């Protein structure tokens, strides 16, 4: 196993740094029906922001729901049942954002169908739509071997983890894909490790936990030489 860790990749992995600037649209909704109608119209970048990007924009500790819609249902509509439904929904189960949009719309539509009244947000707790602009640049960190890769994963900022593991899904137009597993697959094969990375249930992980989990998986699949420190 030690050979695979030291084998030089055909293409080195260059870590990128990622600077995300949230952009509010100045558009808000005050009840669940308005949210549903707005979700049918907003740009996919808005959907991506509220489901995935907002975790980099502001990593607040102790938030119990994994996306902005679930959080809004719990805090503003004070509807825990809906928050639970929106939390259990996993955007990475779908191949593209068009399907993700349909899935969220289906959840809201079904939920509203059985309700006698439309849930409203308290004043001051409206849902405000955002998207983001992202500036990306090369970091000074690269990896030629899997051993280098593990060491680098420990050194890069959380924004790099975000960029290669989450933003990649948007960039590649494939919500199952990420830069890390793609690089490992194309340079080293290792189908079991690649599958394990792609099968991670990452939606509930903080960026720090994603880093630790990736290192743990490589460690688990490739043996003790790829040690990591937390």
């Amino acid at each position, binding site marked *: 196993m030690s050979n695979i860790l030291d084998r030089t990749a055909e293409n080195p992995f260059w870590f990128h740094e990622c600077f995300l600037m949230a952009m509010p649209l100045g558009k808000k909704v005050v009840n669940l029906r308005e949210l549903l109608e707005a979700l049918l119209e907003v740009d996919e970048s808005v959907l991506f922001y509220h489901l995935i990007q907002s975790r980099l924009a502001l990593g607040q500790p*102790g938030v119990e729901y994994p996306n902005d819609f679930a959080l809004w249902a719990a805090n503003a509509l004070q509807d825990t049942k809906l928050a639970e439904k929106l939390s259990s929904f996993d955007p990475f189960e779908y191949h593209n954002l068009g399907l993700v949009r349909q899935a969220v719309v289906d959840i809201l539509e079904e939920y509203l169908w059985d309700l006698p009244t439309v849930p409203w947000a308290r004043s001051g707790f409206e849902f405000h739509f955002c998207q983001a*602009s992202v500036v990306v640049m*090369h970091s000074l960190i690269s990896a030629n071997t899997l051993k280098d890769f593990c060491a680098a994963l420990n050194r890069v900022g959380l924004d790099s983890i975000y960029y290669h593991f989450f933003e990649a899904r948007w960039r590649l137009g494939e919500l199952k894909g990420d830069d890390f597993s793609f690089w490992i697959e194309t340079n080293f094969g290792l189908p079991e490790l690649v599958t394990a990375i792609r099968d991670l249930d990452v939606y509930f992980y903080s960026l720090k936990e994603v880093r630790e989990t990736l290192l743990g998986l490589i460690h688990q699949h490739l043996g003790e030489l790829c040690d990591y420190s937390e």
Partner: protein
Amino acid sequence: MITLNDYAPIVGDEVVGQLCRLAERLQGRRFVHINSTAVGGGVAEILSRAVPLLNQLGLETTWEVIMGDPAFFEVTKAFHNGLQGFKVHLTHAMLEHYRQVNRENARRFNWEADVVLVHDPQPATLIEEMRPQSRRWVWRCHVDASRPHLPVWRFLRGIVKHYDASVFSMSQFAQNLPHPQYLIRPSIDPLSEKNRSLTEEEIKAVLQRLGIERDKPIILQVSRFDSFKDPVGVIQAFRLVRRHTPCKLLLAGGEATDDPEGPQILAQVHEAAQGEPDIQVLLLPSDAHHEVNALQRAADIIVQKSTREGFGLTVTEAMWKGRPVIGGAVGGIVLQLRDYHTGFAVHSPEGCAFRIRYLLHRPEMARRMGLTAREYVRTQFLITRHIRDYLTLMILQDNPNSRLIQL
């Protein structure tokens, strides 16, 4: 002089390295900030720290301050209150005076810029006189504009729509505007006199000088004497707590040169505190950063019971000092205080009193919340993140229509 490298032990080498690499793309760019007060208030504090750091990074950054007479600041205070939802009345003469003062300031200025960031409404109308002086004009709103009084916003929107972009502290404050809007959270400087570490001796010396005994738990609110900071509500909360638990209340306030309402509110505070020996009102000069630092570190619980708040940097400062914080559930305070994790957000004097009692009786919980709060501030609300956002904003101004920019 403080250099960027001095921040590395606090935020990590990688964060400082990132700033340098990002700034390499912007070498020599001219970046001008304009506001209306050189001292006092959160904006002046941020600029006094950010401008030297941006210069160190190789951007030609300057900070200009507009001048105005008391009548001008009466108008802009009305804008401020109107943006925060008060039903203020603006006459044609007031608006004309506002424009006139800005015209006079424009004649005095001779800068040219690649990007100018105009802070708050006071200097906003400069764009009408000085448009060609900068390639891009960005309006920065620090105020809680979630529910502005319509006539005030209608007037300001007529000016702001001419800008190339706007920046708000929270998405709730963003408006229907014909240009890109961005979110930039304010920040504090961990190395400033207000936030640097202090020794126990330094803290004791300040308390002694201000005549504060540590014989009971200290509840502290630091803020201007402004009705939106609700100092009278804090006194109400304190009186409720005192029925059950001994403690003392310190209300420490500074003065800002652009706030004519201060003395009036201060008089209301004195009246509300009458007959209560455990309430101390401290009127501190705007440069009493060292004293505020010591007070925050000496306090057992810090309160910021605002009823409107752009962001609430006093909350951030208190969190950075590892203190448990109770804040009004408004504006940026909600973003910072998460119940049972980083603090408590409350909706009334009663709620504030209840949480003060809760924390006084649970010192271990208070300590843990303080630690979590400090770490949250380290990653999200320090000046290094703010500088990064300024640099990103500058890059985005070169590519306003692009959502993904590869450098």
